């Protein structure tokens, strides 16, 4: 130690300290490097990829490069020139050879319903490249749609490389042929309602979990160890049961010839079976049950640390039980309430399987639509855009929540 110290005496102390500091930092970095890499590949990269997909507009530039180039000169007024028609004819023929015409057709069909038929039937009927100067007449004869400005505006709007189409569609907006942002047609604007519905269910489930979970957590924290452990097992048991099993159990319990309706009818309380499933009631019921442990556990961990002496002190100073609870006990549980609510809410708005199984057609949350566009119709642009909007609104809510409700208090381990 001293020998090393003397040996290094020619190097200034400041520099040596810095070096030691740097080595320590590097070692610390080395220790968290695996975790960082893991987070990067499993979290950051996929999310960035999803956001990119919501603006990526690759189909038309890839399938119709000549048309895209020819339309750069078009000012959007009237019909494009003969050269653009010739380029389109050439692109359609090449794409049909390569077998990827339908890829562009699918993309353009989002903008103008019916475009798929126009493009594919033109591909079928266009036997050879039209003679120079006749492309316009030939194409319009094959499909009258080519004589409309709207069709060309659609191709131009999808010319890439990036598009705002999907992100706008995710919030019920669209661009008219002139490029101005306008409301989507009324019978197709659903996503704002779906987002609102998603948040409404999220808030509802969070509130129910809080109301039901708070007393249970209190009981858990204040019972003698043996009994509280037994109770804890009851709380954790649903945790270890498959989500699907729990959801299906609710179906069995709540269906019109199920246990609840059966008992009520047998008791003579009701004549007709009540509708308890495949509607909003069923969604609240099943989701609250599934998410309850996520509320109870953070509350319990905070309540464990609250000394009963405070309440005794409040009582001895003459506070009524209600006053003591509201002014002494409750404020101390705020971090637990905050953590539990945030956890339940964020889990709830991303829920898929439970609302899909126990909800009706009017109870589907945003996750259902993301899954639908991902797997069924392969509209990955819209699926990503809906995902991006959900992600953004979740982040905004979490930040707002952290700022408003908690001020500079701790968030029970959840940093904001």
């Amino acid at each position: 130690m001293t020998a090393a110290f003397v040996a290094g005496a020619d190097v200034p102390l400041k520099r040596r300290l810095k070096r030691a500091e740097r080595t320590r930092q590097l070692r610390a970095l080395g220790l968290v490097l695996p975790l960082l890499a893991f987070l990067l590949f499993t979290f950051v990269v996929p999310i960035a990829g999803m956001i990119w997909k919501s603006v990526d507009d690759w189909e038309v530039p890839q399938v119709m490069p000549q048309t895209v180039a020819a339309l750069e000169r078009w000012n959007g007024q009237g019909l494009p020139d003969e050269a653009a028609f010739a380029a389109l004819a050439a692109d359609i023929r090449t794409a049909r050879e390569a077998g990827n015409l339908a890829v562009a057709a699918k993309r353009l069909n989002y903008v103008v319903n019916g475009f798929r038929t126009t493009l594919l039937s033109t591909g079928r009927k266009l036997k050879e490249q039209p003679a120079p100067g006749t492309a316009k007449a030939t194409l319009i004869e094959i499909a009258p749609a080519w004589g409309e400005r709207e069709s060309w505006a659609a191709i131009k709007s999808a010319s890439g490389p990036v598009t705002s189409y999907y992100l706008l569609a995710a919030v019920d907006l669209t661009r008219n042929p002139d490029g101005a942002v306008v409301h989507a047609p009324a019978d197709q604007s659903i996503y704002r309602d779906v987002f609102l519905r998603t948040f409404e269910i999220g808030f509802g489930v969070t509130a129910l979990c809080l109301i039901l979970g708070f007393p249970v957590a209190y009981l858990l924290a204040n019972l003698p160890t043996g009994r509280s452990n037994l109770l804890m097992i009851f709380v954790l048991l649903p945790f270890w049961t498959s989500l699907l099993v729990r959801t299906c159990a609710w179906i069995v319990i709540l269906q019109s010839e199920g246990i609840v309706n059966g008992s009520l009818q047998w008791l003579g309380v009701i004549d007709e079976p009540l509708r308890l499933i495949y509607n909003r009631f069923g969604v609240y019921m099943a989701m609250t049950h599934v998410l309850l442990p996520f509320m109870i556990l953070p509350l319990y961990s905070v309540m464990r640390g609250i000394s009963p002496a405070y309440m005794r002190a409040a009582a001895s100073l003459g506070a009524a039980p209600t006053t003591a609870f509201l002014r002494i006990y409750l404020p101390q549980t705020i971090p637990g309430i905050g953590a539990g609510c945030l956890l339940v809410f964020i889990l709830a708005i991303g829920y898929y399987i439970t609302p899909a199984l126990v909800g009706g057609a009017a109870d589907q949350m945003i996750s259902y639509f993301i899954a639908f566009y991902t797997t069924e119709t392969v509209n990955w642009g819209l699926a990503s855009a809906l995902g991006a909007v959900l992600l953004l609104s979740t982040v905004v809510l979490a930040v707002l929540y952290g700022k408003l409700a908690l001020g500079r208090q701790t968030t029970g381990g959840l940093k904001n």
Partner: protein
Amino acid sequence: MSKIKVALGFAATFTALTALSSAASARDLTVVSWGGAYQDVQKKVYFEPFKATGTPMNDESWDGGVGVLRAKVQGGASTWDVVQVESEELALGCDEGLYEKLNYSKIGGEDAYLPATVNACGVGAIVYDFVLGYDKDKLKDAPKSWADFFDTKKFPGKRGLRQGAKTTLEIALMADGVAPADVYKVLGTEAGVERAFKKLDTIKNDIVWWKAGAQPPQLLASGEVAMTSVYNGRIDAANKKENKNFGMVWNGALYTIDSWVILKGSPNQEAAYKFLNFVGKAENQAKLSEGIAYGTSNKKAPSLLSKAVLTDLPTSPDNMKNAVEINTDFWLENIDRLTERFNKWAAK
């Protein structure tokens, strides 16, 4: 020294990787189908006998969605070779180049199959219907058409329909008196779509929406619904296996064709063709129809079946008389728009 170590490390990693990738390509043929009662029958009459011919294979099941296949193929290292797909997945995936172009000379030639089941990217596996299903034990008089399905006065009880616009709108139009042959012509107009939703309004509060093919028989069995739209084979399976007494109405049935495809870049092409050839043979397909009431693609298969089996098949002339083929092109063009419409209507 350290450079040699690095080089050695690289070499070792590289060898390990190539060993891994060759192990991946050396996997057995994997065939993917729809699961449930249907795949049980397939195991018995297709997969097991095919294994006995000397080619090892595994089978898996999936819930459909061309997005799944896109992710498999584009992600590389796909673990599936032969997949059974619905008509829309066939069309979309074929457009996107997700499937190998089929060489029909290896599977008995195009002429062996019904023309409607021959496609450049896939060969027909089964023909099946969406029919009106009901529980004979619970309904005194049998419903005869989709119009009865919408008549909640004469036939009290809830109704099950597949969640979404597809099949639901066609059924609503037929219930409203549109002839099966004209369904898509009417649905292609704005007025036709309005008309379908208006008809659906009349029973809106009595509808239970199902999502997976296994649900309708459960809904019937639990008494949750009095009638439901359902795949014909599921009714048949429930009657045979679970001693249910379910009935079907073929009038106004919607039929469609599922196909076998080979995923692009499958390392097991040869085995895949052997498999397709095996399941394309009339004698094997006849056994499938005996196990579950689905029609098949080989022209000669029906001639090997008994009268009793034939009458319950979607492909029997009587059952085809008033049936509509689900129009794939129509839905490819309109699915996004009508899905939004449908959800708008559902949320009202």
